[in-house]
């Protein structure tokens, strides 16, 4: 595996091996010395053409725990916004000797463009491209679900998972649909019809417009961030109405199965798609997702740059 651009690049064995590697690396992170020497002397560039502090620091922490040198290239406010092309940026990174580029970009497909081009030779990790995919987020979500509800199995067979909100514009949803269904879970997408993409029929999911009817049957509710500006594009009348039908509040949480968990990729709009009571409740695993994000991203970098998964049980 040279790049991670889409969950579609992975088969089930590879996906599980990343999760297993993350599990092993998490044990390292829990120890007194958090660092592994694996990627010493390797250079990883975080190329962020779109703001995302949490994803950037998560990848940065992951790379540093593997002893890689990290360069943060925030294209916002630097050359991309001054009109430098992705090609020129890539060739600059190549000239600097980047072994891997972690790219966050506002344009769908930007990571694949970088990987398919002859502009640079390093590995490309998609850290979120437009409204396309965010594979590392899906992997950390699957890791978190498996930890809580996997019952010792390696995959997610039999679990029922609802993904709720702005599916149309969500890269998190696209990656999660692919990964969670590949791992055996049954995924239901819940959203107003305006926020479900035309052409969804080929996705391995059920679609519901009625959140309340879905809640009692699922083991995981994954809430998606809803951007306020969607209102002006007529996707829903106003935030109040959105919350009324698709927000996860304490009342709705009361109808969840026992043991069911609440997830959110962050950043949250408290009071819009999720209420404070839910976000801070014992069902919420939202901060744990952040913790797991570092281990999973370590595993991704490990697999791409150290040439294979970490053997389970090794040190």
């Amino acid at each position: 595996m040279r790049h991670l651009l889409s969950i579609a690049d992975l088969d089930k064995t590879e996906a599980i091996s990343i999760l297993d590697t993350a599990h092993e690396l998490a044990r390292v992170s829990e120890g007194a010395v958090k660092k592994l020497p694996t990627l010493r002397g390797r250079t990883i560039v975080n190329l962020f053409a779109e703001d995302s502090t949490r994803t950037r620091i998560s990848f940065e922490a992951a790379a540093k725990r593997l002893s890689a040198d990290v360069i943060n290239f925030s294209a916002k406010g630097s050359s991309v916004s001054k009109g430098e092309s992705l090609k020129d940026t890539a060739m600059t990174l190549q000239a600097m000797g980047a072994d891997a580029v972690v790219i966050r970009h506002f344009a769908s497909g930007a990571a694949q463009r970088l990987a398919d081009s002859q502009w640079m030779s390093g590995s490309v990790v998609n850290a979120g491209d437009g409204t396309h995919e965010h594979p590392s987020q899906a992997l950390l979500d699957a890791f978190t679900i498996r930890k809580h509800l996997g019952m010792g199995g390696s995959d997610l067979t039999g679990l029922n998972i609802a993904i709720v909100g702005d599916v149309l514009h969500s890269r998190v949803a696209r990656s999660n649909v692919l990964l969670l269904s590949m791992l055996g879970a049954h995924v239901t997408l819940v959203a107003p019809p305006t926020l479900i993409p035309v052409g969804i029929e080929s996705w391995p999911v059920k679609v519901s417009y009625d959140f309340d009817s879905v809640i009692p049957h699922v083991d995981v509710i994954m809430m998606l961030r809803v951007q306020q500006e969607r209102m002006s594009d007529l996707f829903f009348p106003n935030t109040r109405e959105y919350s009324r039908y698709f927000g996860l509040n304490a009342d709705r949480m009361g109808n969840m199965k026992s043991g069911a968990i609440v997830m959110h990729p962050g950043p949250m709009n408290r009071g819009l798609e999720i209420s404070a009571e839910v976000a801070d409740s014992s069902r919420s695993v939202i901060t744990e997702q952040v913790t797991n994000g570092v281990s999973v991203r370590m595993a991704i970098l490990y697999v791409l740059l150290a040439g294979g998964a970490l053997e389970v049980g090794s040190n």
Partner: protein
Amino acid sequence: MTTADFLIKNGQLPDGTKADICITDGLITSLGKEFKGAMTTTIDATDCIVLPGLVDLHTHLREPGREDAETVLSGSRAGAKGGYTAVSAMANTSPVADTAGVVEQVYRLGQEAGLLDVFPIGAVTQGLKGETLSEIGAMADSVARVRVFSDDGHCVSDPLVMRRALEYIKKFGGVIAQHAQDPRMTVGSQMNEGEISARLGLKGWPAVAEEAIIARDVLLADHVKSRLHICHLTTAGGVEIIRWAKARGIDVTAEVTPHHLLLTDDLASSYDPVFKVNPPLRTEADVVALREALADGTIDIVATDHAPHPTEAKECEWQEAAFGMLGLETALSIVQKTMVDSGLLSWSQVADRMSITPARIGGYQDHGQSLVVGSNAHLAIINPHQTWRVDRDLVQSKSSNTPYHGYELPGVITHTFYKGKPTVVNGVVTSGGGL
């Protein structure tokens, strides 16, 4: 004993008969078997089809304003290479072709290039803004004799503006060529809306945004009894509306591009913007409907929508890239591949769809003439039995954004004759300005 400038020996006419064709002083002077007489040059057309010179109703030549992408001369060379003897230069140049001055300049540049006739298309509205009519009458009366008006690249979306434009051009028998795209339904759109756009996370351009405008405009054309042409039809639904309108006797014609006869939206999966085009590549079902409609005459013509762009406009992220692809040099091969080799069109129908009818729609009387004695010697000679490999680095166009790079295509154009002079000889474009 007769004399001729050129003798084209043993070629097959569109109707299937074999003939020797003599060209003298720009005209076909004899047509038949085994010409005996003196001639300057003989061309062996054994195994080849001789077509009337192709006529493109939809070409972006980029001059004035974007000479880095194409010039009238480089576009003329690309046209000649593709068998064209006339092209229609779209109005979305900089400055926009919305005055007599600009259309006369483009027309004159075409004459100077001397490889084919360049017929400027005038903008419907000033600056392509869709608000006020441009000086349509002045362009019609200019040396360029403009008859086709289009805001192509933009839709004339205001129904009142469209109605007035359709009415106004009746004065001189013009036609409005509509780029059918509802602007509100396609803000920021990147590709066909459907299964592929949903997966790729690229903003959808729904078929209904094209079909709604076509439906409105055929009704408007009917109401004011004027002539409407629909540019680059791409959807099965659009075909149904045109079919309905023609059955009602509405004066509407429609074009399809070569790329919409072959390519589909799944090509966007590469995120390579060479496949980004407006209107977008559609589904396999649309492609099938377009081919059938071109075969049964619902769609009247093939037009290239040749849209050159400089390298940097395509060497970037999909959503940042320009819309459009090259078309002139590959059009006839794509039509052979999709329509002739599949048995949907005869060569005589190809002559109709790519020469005779586009010339009629555009009012280009010197072009699109059947191959008979006395006709203008605008000819394209194609060997349908040979194939060639498309190489973007070897195109005549100044740009290289062909979606067919690396394709092995049928049909090699060996010669093109414009006004009785060869502009392409054995596949090589002459320098321009005739021999």
